[in-house]
Structures are given as structure tokens and as C-alpha cells.
């Protein structure tokens, strides 16, 4: 084996020369015959293929879920992969038992994915709560049960923790029989694997992949046989930091990392809740800020937020560096001001002065794990009822993620009142060019953006406007 992928799968150490750009799902099912991991959609929308990935963090292993159908095999190098087979012991473990007791299993096809997701939640070192547990399971679909019994099973597990002061860590989960004993030594085994990992990697590349959650859906037929270069951040550097009133975010920061960042949540109150509507836990664990921006989808959620922050992009091509505003980056539908060799490394924005208010709105057909029909971010600084600075972005209403320049300019230095607001939505309507597609008709998208702009003001300035007269 010339350049094998080396990792631990359940409790077995694996070195394989299976294609590095193949997805983990195929390796597990076809090569390992671990068929408890199912293929339901191959686009990260059903969760039947969910596995747990453990990564060394200091001397501890940090676990999270991913969709194995979108995960290049190479990315599990030096990590711990856990499938349903790796959780089984004699009979049923307490999570499996709770599902059995609540009748939360019908055809069984989605079942292993749910067990995996809930186990990963317990491995995430927080006191189990129903709401946060359900958020972690929202990327798993069941068509038979309608989820009510699954929710009851999760409730059972969560409740088993209420009067328990035991720490939630790997030894305690082992003693509760939620995970098998071999988990106790995984950190040491990963340490020794990582010591010997070959550092040099082939640099021939057909695709440059960050999280891969989109490209592995779009290019599924040929990416498996192509050379893929995985972009990752340097492990030893902070991905999000502040220097001189400017916040820098590595392009390789995952949505989960942004959601959980104290810095980012300090800047944008409510960010964590907003990003619950971004994909699913499995997707958020892989999708990155850079991927979201470069993918150039007109309804990209993070891009929408960063447009309102007036973010700058930091691009690199070898030693050549370049900066530009995010709102100048998009030239047309999926067309970027970027050469193929250039890599987006970082995104930065000025820290908002105190008093700035921020709001994010997203409407999709289904609230969770769905792509927006229209989304909009709102950044505003008001002094004495006069708008000092305002930036509004809108997704899903143009070929590119749109910064509503005309609307923002119009509202600057204006008073917040119905008249100005009505004029603003009129300008917005002229500034956008939505098309009818599966996410909605032109008529709907125009109406929806108007409503979302109203919502920004109603949410933040209800006392300054006569909301009912707007509608």
C-alpha cells in the first residue's frame, strides 16, 4: 500500500488503499460489509448513513456526527469512525432499549442513524436536555413513525439523567453501557496512529474540497474516481479571533464552530438559534464558511449573514495575497471574481460598535434542514430614531447572494417610520430579480422579501412604526 488511509473503525485499526476520494459510506458498506449504515439519499438529507467521527483534541477524543455519504474517506485519516456495529453489545444498550420500549422503530431502515445521532449527542459532554437532543437528531428522517415515538424515546434517555450528578464523559458512558469499553483506550490508540501518519500528500487535484457537503452531492458521479485535495485549517491556530477591532474567521471554520463561538455569538446575539436552521447537525459539522461563500449559492445562509457584516475576503494563490469585499465577489450566477488556483483563506469584518442591532430571517418550506425560499440579514445602528448605518442582504431573489445596496443607501440617515419603510420595500422590489423555481414563484419571493424586511423592523423597532398599517 502506497499511501493508505489509516484510522480506527469501531474497535479495529484499519489501513486501506481504497480510493481516498471515495465516500466513507461506500467503504463501510462495500469493503467492510458494515451494512448497518444505510444509504437513503446520498445527499445528506436523510441521515440514514450517519456515523460518529472521533478526533483527537489534546489527549481526549472529540466526537461528532457526519453524513458518511458526503465524507471523503481521506478525511477520516487518524480518526475514530463509529458505526452502529461498534455500539452493539449483548442485547440492547439503554438507547436502543428506550427506542424498543417506545415503539420508535418500524421498518428499521432509518433506525441505526437515529441511534448513532443520539449516542453522539451523549458523547458531546453536555448535560442532556430534550431540546438540544432533538436538534442533534433533526438531520435524521423517519418516514414510518412520524417521529412522535422517537421523541418519547429521546425523552426517556434525557430523563434518565435528571437526578444524576455523574459526569458525562467516556468512562461514565461506558459504565452506563451506552458505549462499549473499547472507547476507553481510543485516545491512546489514535495518538499512536497520528504519530506515524504520513504528512506529505499528493498535490494533484481535480477538486479542491473543504467540507464537501455540496460538491459530493453535485459531482457524485465523477468525484469518487478523481483526485481530491482536502482543505483544512492548521490545527494549532485559532479559527476565530479578534485583532484591533476586526474579527477574523478562517474559511475552514465549520458552521458548528461558528455557532458555538463565544466571539461570534457576542457579536451577533441569537446567532446560535439562527444557525439551527442551517442544514442539520451532520451537515453543520462539515460545512465551512469558505465553502458556503465560494459555492456561490444565491440562498447561502452564512454568506447572507456576512454580507450584512460587510465582510472582506482574504484570498491566497501561493504567496500572492488579495483582499476584497464579499459583496464584490459575485459576478453572476455561480461566477466569482476568483481564479481557480486562488483559495479563500479567511473572512474578516469590523467589530460592530455597541448599539448595533442584528437580525436574521429565513423562510423555507420546512423550517429545519431546508433551503431558504428567501433569507435576509439586517445590521443597523440607530441614533435618536435616525438610522446611522444599515446593511440589508437578501438571498434567493437574484442570481447571486445579494447585498441590497439601494435599500441600504436609501435608509441611511432616515427616520424609522412607515413612510420610509414602505419606500424601502418598493426600492427592494426594484433591486431584486427572482426567478420561479421549486423554492417558490416570483410573486411569492417578492412578497416574502417585503415581509422579511418588515419583520426586521417589527422585531427591533415595533414601538417606532405602526405595523398593522404596513400589512
Amino acid at each position: 500500500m502506497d499511501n493508505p488511509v489509516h484510522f480506527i473503525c469501531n474497535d479495529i485499526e484499519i489501513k486501506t488503499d481504497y480510493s481516498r476520494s471515495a465516500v466513507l459510506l461506500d467503504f463501510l458498506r462495500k469493503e467492510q460489509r458494515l451494512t448497518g449504515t444505510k444509504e437513503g439519499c446520498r445527499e445528506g438529507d436523510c441521515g440514514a448513513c450517519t456515523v460518529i467521527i472521533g478526533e483527537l483534541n489534546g489527549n481526549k477524543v472529540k466526537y461528532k456526527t457526519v453524513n458518511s455519504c458526503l465524507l471523503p474517506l481521506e478525511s477520516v485519516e487518524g480518526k475514530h469512525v463509529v458505526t452502529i456495529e461498534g455500539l452493539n453489545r449483548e442485547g440492547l444498550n439503554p438507547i436502543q432499549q428506550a427506542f424498543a420500549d417506545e415503539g420508535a422503530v418500524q421498518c428499521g431502515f432509518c433506525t441505526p442513524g437515529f441511534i448513532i445521532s443520539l449516542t453522539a449527542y451523549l458523547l458531546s459532554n453536555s448535560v442532556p436536555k430534550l431540546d438540544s437532543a432533538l436538534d442533534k437528531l433533526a438531520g435524521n428522517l423517519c418516514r414510518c413513525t412520524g417521529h412522535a415515538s422517537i421523541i418519547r424515546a429521546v425523552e426517556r434517555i434525557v430523563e434518565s439523567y435528571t437526578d444524576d450528578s455523574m459526569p458525562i464523559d467516556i468512562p461514565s458512558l461506558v459504565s452506563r453501557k451506552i458505549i462499549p469499553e473499547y472507547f476507553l483506550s481510543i485516545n491512546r490508540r489514535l495518538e499512536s496512529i497520528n504519530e506515524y501518519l504520513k504528512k506529505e500528500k499528493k498535490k494533484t487535484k481535480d477538486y479542491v474540497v473543504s467540507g464537501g457537503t455540496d460538491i459530493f452531492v453535485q459531482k457524485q458521479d465523477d468525484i469518487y474516481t478523481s483526485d481530491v485535495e482536502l482543505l483544512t485549517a492548521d490545527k494549532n491556530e485559532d479559527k476565530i479571533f479578534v485583532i484591533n477591532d476586526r474579527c477574523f474567521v478562517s474559511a475552514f471554520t465549520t458552521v458548528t464552530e461558528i455557532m458555538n463561538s463565544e466571539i461570534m455569538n457576542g457579536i451577533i446575539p441569537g446567532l446560535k438559534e439562527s444557525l439551527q436552521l442551517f442544514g442539520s447537525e451532520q451537515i453543520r459539522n462539515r460545512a465551512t464558511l469558505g465553502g458556503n461563500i465560494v459555492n456561490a449559492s444565491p440562498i447561502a445562509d452564512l454568506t447572507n449573514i456576512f454580507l450584512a457584516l460587510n465582510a472582506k475576503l482574504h484570498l491566497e494563490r501561493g504567496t500572492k495575497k488579495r483582499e476584497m469585499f464579499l459583496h464584490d465577489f459575485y459576478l453572476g450566477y455561480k461566477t466569482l471574481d476568483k481564479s481557480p488556483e486562488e483559495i479563500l483563506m479567511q473572512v474578516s469584518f469590523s467589530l460592530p460598535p455597541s448599539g448595533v442591532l442584528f437580525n436574521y430571517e429565513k423562510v423555507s418550506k420546512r423550517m429545519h434542514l431546508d433551503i431558504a425560499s428567501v433569507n435576509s440579514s439586517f445590521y443597523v445602528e440607530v441614533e435618536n430614531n435616525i438610522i446611522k448605518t444599515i446593511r440589508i442582504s437578501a438571498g434567493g431573489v437574484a442570481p447571486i447572494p445579494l447585498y441590497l445596496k439601494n435599500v441600504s443607501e436609501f435608509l441611511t440617515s432616515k427616520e424609522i417610520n412607515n413612510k420610509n419603510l414602505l419606500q424601502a420595500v418598493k426600492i427592494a422590489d426594484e433591486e431584486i430579480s427572482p426567478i420561479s423555481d421549486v423554492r417558490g414563484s416570483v410573486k411569492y419571493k417578492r412578497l416574502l422579501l417585503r415581509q422579511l424586511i418588515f419583520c426586521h423592523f417589527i422585531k427591533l423597532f415595533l414601538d417606532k412604526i405602526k405595523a398593522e398599517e404596513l400589512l
Partner: protein
Amino acid sequence: MKNYDVVQHLRGESLFLDDFNLIEGTLFLSVFASPIPHGKIVKLDYEEALNLPGIKGIITYKDIPGENQIGGIVQDEELLAKDLVHFIGHPIAIVVADKPSTGKKALKKIKLEIEKLPVITDPREAFEKNELIIPPREFTIGSTEAAWKDCDLIVEGKAESGGQEHLYLETQSSYSFPVEGGGIKTISSTQGPTAVQRGISKVLGIPMHKIEVDVLRLGGGFGGKEDQATAWAVMTALAAYIYKKPAKLVLSRQEDIRLTGKRHPYSSDYKIGLTREGKILAYEVTFYQNAGAAADLSPAILDRTLFHATNSYFIPNVKATAYSCRTNLPPNTAFRGFGGPQGMFVIESAIYKAAEKLGVPVAVLQKKNLLKENDEFPFGQKAKYCNAIKCFSSAIEKFNFDRLTSEVHAFNNANKFVKKGIAAMPICFGISFTNTMLNQASSLVHVYTDGSISVSTAAIEMGQGVNMKIRQVAASIFSISVNKVKSETTNTTRNANTSATAASSAADLNGNATELACKNILERLKRVAAKELNTEEIDSIELRNEFVHLKGEKTSITWERLISLAYTQRVNLSSHAHYATPGIHFNNKTNKGEPFAYHVYGTGLVQVKLDCLRGIYEIESVKVVHDFGKSINEIIDKGQAEGAIMQGLGWMTLEEVAHSKEGKLLSDTLSTYKVPDLHFTPKEIKVEFMENPAESLAVFNSKAIGEPPFMYGIGVFFALMNSVKAFRPGKEFKFSAPLTPEKILLMLYS
């Protein structure tokens, strides 16, 4: 009692078709399908594809040894299109390759010259052009013509309901093997193994006994694998037959969504007449069913729409007409409810509109017209053991509908931008295949010498727990532990001439057959025990808790010992029994008869909360009183009810099968077709068992559960209408499902 089959599911050890170990030499199939909705094939050029390394061959209609025909009810569906294609996704050729990826590459190299023909996607347009699958169907009772003059109020309108993708998590799949003597063994993810066997027999031109179809389990079916699993199974059998090698086909999710039919969209006109007091005197309805390009099961589905056109109400004068309209969409097919929901949606829309005109609450009109004992349905059957009023009153009282309603009003008065709505939805669903012939089943029971039992029936396990119920039936007849009973795969060599697992009837039919087979063996065992105990009174022998009892007293003869004695005495420990539902009949010339063994009743209350700024909503609660009969397994039945309700809610809200005008499916992935997820599940979902259930013809006095609760979901449509009206009082809206956030926002602000 728990469904022990779930242990394997929870451990990820249950095998689905794609989990089986591959047999050496397996060939993989890819389907080349029409890219346009209607056209004439001018030239098919697959030379380049054929020359790719790893391609074993390409099969077209020319290679079919038997008949190129897989139509079930009507012989109108070619397996592989010869001259004409009728929908996007119409199979034209099968690529046979050594690897799935090779086959996919080859698909891109096939060149098709095709002449475009006119496209119809709207059922009313198809009707205008006389494109009907079968002649019109009509059910009548009384005379609507004569009744209109007695009506104080007559309301007319239109109602439309959309399609629905099944989204079973396991896609369509099949695996076939050549066996000696020119036969075929096929493993298929099908609800209808005999349909598959018949299809293979016809296409290969070999007798049915040379074909063995075996089904272990399905990763969900919901009707989508009743008729539409057949094509894929036949394709693998054809390839295995031609190339003498195992052949496998597993559709990708996108192929599955694109190539298979959905729930039928319906467009309907209604006219309803009532007295001032709210008594419905007359109802006329015309259904335009969008059948797609071939009959599939559409005629049977059309009939069930007519059977349920009056839902849970008695209406003395009814004229219900139905047209099955041929369009250029993939043939639509069975989906939980089988046309019933589409019929019920129209009568509920009519009642809603009538209530509005009369100025009375909808629930008052509903209640006033509910079926009573011996009321006659438009097809001549009389309501027996009728629980319509009992369930409705019980739901209204138990969940305090009046209080909920006034709370909703109070909330709406206090909130400007958020409005709530509540609605009641009574249901009545007939149990039996409406094609009387299909109401038969067989069971083959073996008791092995160690006392373990194997049961083979026609029932397909697809998550509904039928295997568990059948095991419970056998265990209960012999009074032994359910762990001693195993449900076998469904196999056409063990059980011949099976009816599909459909119409909610599998547990009824196969459970009854199993009961008969077990009782045959039980009688023989009792004789063995009587001999051993030196008594001639066979009736004083009883099996109880794994021991033989004599006159109620436990003896020392255990179950195992009894079996051993029987074997030693050369007593037959196997039985094959056949069950046919008694008393049912239907004349499809007069459209009168007694097609149903019994009806299932219930009432659901649905409450929603609407964000009137954004047009998005939350389903707060669904509360149901359902007539389960004497449930064999409450956990399974409750799970069926909850799952069906959620699918019904999805059909009325999020689930939108969107086509372009040219007939191209736009919602062909899970990122564009959204089904209810965990967050969409109502915070409160209560399913209560109706008290004091009556006798029924179902096994052990239980009642069929698969489909009926789906229809509670219709309630969400009217709850949402109420919430919209709370924001825009006095406005009239179309009855057009699903009520997506887009439709809602446009209703709020247009």
C-alpha cells in the same frame, strides 16, 4: 407487547435487499429512460455505450423473450418502450454492467433521437380530449335532481389535492439469479410478490412455477411497492435470464423519485345542498383523477375515491362521478388511503364552505350528518357497528373541543400577527380490497420436533409489524411464548397466489389464515394429549402456558413433550390453511353490494399556529379518538396511527410534488421534496383508543390500522384555513392542497 423484530433493527443487523452479500459474477443494471414526456422514438443508438469496457450488454424491447407487458389491471404498460414514450422516466433500455458506476457512465453515451408529441399534464385537459384510462364510473343513491328543490342552501365549488411521494427510505430494488431448468429466483423489495412472479412469467414467457419470488422485508412501502416494484424486478429477472448471471438493480434516490408514480393528484367539482337546519340532503361530485400515463392501479384507486366520497356522513341523495385521466406523468399508484383521502378532502371542503354560508361552526354541520347504525352508503352497504357518532362525541368531550375553540378565539383576539386555528376531522374507512377476489390469504405453519414454529404467509413485513402480529396469533392459539414462533420470508413457492400486502388487510387476512392453520394442528395435538392422558373427552384438553391442561388442571405434559409424542405417533405437525373473507360482494355493473368486511371510524382534532408575517406555521396538536377494535398489539397499532397521521399532515402541508409545465418533475431530491421531520411533529400528539369496541371480522376482533388514521391529517388543512381567516376575516379562499407556506402567504396578502 413489544415487537421483538425491532431488536435486529436497533442493532443494524436486519438485512435489506442492498445489504445481502453479493454473489460472484453479479451484473448491475442501470435504466435508460425517456428524457421527454411524450414522443416517438426515431432512433436509439447505443453502439458507443456498448463498447465501453465493463459493459456486458444493453437490453431493449427486442430482447424480450415473452410479452413486453407489465400492466396489472389494464394491459397498457410496456416494460421497455418500443415506439412511443409516454412520460419522462419511461424505461427504454437496460444497461448491463460489471459495476454500477460503469453502467452510469454508459447511460451518458446512449443517443436517442426522438420526435416530440403533444404533452398533457392536467387531468381536466385530458378529460376534455377524452384521454380516459377506463370508462367513467358513477355511484348514486336517491336522486340529487329531485332533492335540490328541497334544499335551503346549495353551495358549489372546486377542490384540488396534490400528489405525494412515498419516500420509503429503502429505494426500489431487486436481485435475480438464474436457477437450473431455465428458472429464476428473484429477491425483490415488493409488497406484491405474486405480481412480480406473474410479471416475470409473462415477460420471460416461462410458467409461474419456474419463478420463485422471495421477500425478506421492506424499508417502507406505503403502497409505492405494491405495483411499482414489478418493473425493476422483471428487469433483473430478464438480465439474469439472458446473461445466465445474477443481476441486481437498486435505484438511487433521485432515480426512484423520478421514475416512479406518486399519490394521484385530483381536481374535483362539488355541489352540496342542505336544509336550513344543516341537514345535508344532496351531494354531487365529479372527480378528475390524474392517473399518469398508464393504468397501474388507478382504476381501483378511482373506485375507492367513490367508496369514500361521503366520508363519515349519511347523505340520502348522492351522485358521484369519477374520471381516470391519462396524462404524460409517470403512472400514479397506490399510496396509503388509496384514493380515499382524495374523496374525503372534497366532501370536507364542501361542508366547510356550506358551514361558512350557513354561519354555523363546521363541527356542528359535521356532527349533524354523521352516519348512524344501518344508514346506507351510496354503494348499497349499510353501516354496521357504526362508531361514527361515538368517536366524534368522545373526541369532542374528551379533549374539550369547545374550550379549545374559545381559547383559540381568545388567543386570536389578543395577538395581531400570530393566529391559531382548530378543526375536527371525522373519518370512516372501509376494510377489504374492493376487488372482492383479492380478499384471500394462506398460511403454512410448521411445528418442528423441538417445539419451535415457523409461519409462512403472504404478508410482507414493511415496518407495520405484521410479522409480530402473526407470531402473536400462532403463539396465542397454542398458548406458548411468542419467541417460539418465527415469521418466515414471504415466498411464492411456500405461499402461492398471494394478494399484495395492501388495503390495510394483511394482518386480517393472513392472521385469520394462520389462526385456521394453527387450529388444525391444535386439534391433532389435543387428540395426542387425550390419548396420552387416557381420556376420550378431547374437549376437556386445553393448552395453557406451555402445558397440557385436563379439565382445567395442569398436567405434566409440556409443549415440547406433546410435540415429541405427536411426532413419534406420526401425526402431521404442519398445516396449510386458506382464508377468504366471508359475506363480501360487489357488483361493478350496478355499483352496489357489500364490499367491506367492516368500517373503521374515528375523529381527530388538529390545532395550528400561524405566523401571519412570514406565512409559516406550526402544528400544535393532533388529538384523536380512534376505533382500534380489540388491538392485538397496542404499541404497534399506536405507531401505525401516529405514522399515518404524520403522512397525512405532510400531504396537506409541506409535501408538494412540483412539475414544470412540460411535465418535468422539479421536486426530485430530498433537498427539494420536504417531508415532515422531527421538528415538524406536533408538540402534542394523542391517540386514544375508543372504549368498548364491538365485534369485527378482523383477526381476534382487532381492526385494520394501516390506512385509516392517514385521513386525520386532512384536518390540518381546515385548521390552517381557520387561522388564515382569523387574519383576513370575510375573505374566500380556494380549496387547494397542499397549503405550503407559499400558498399561505399569498392567501394572507393577495
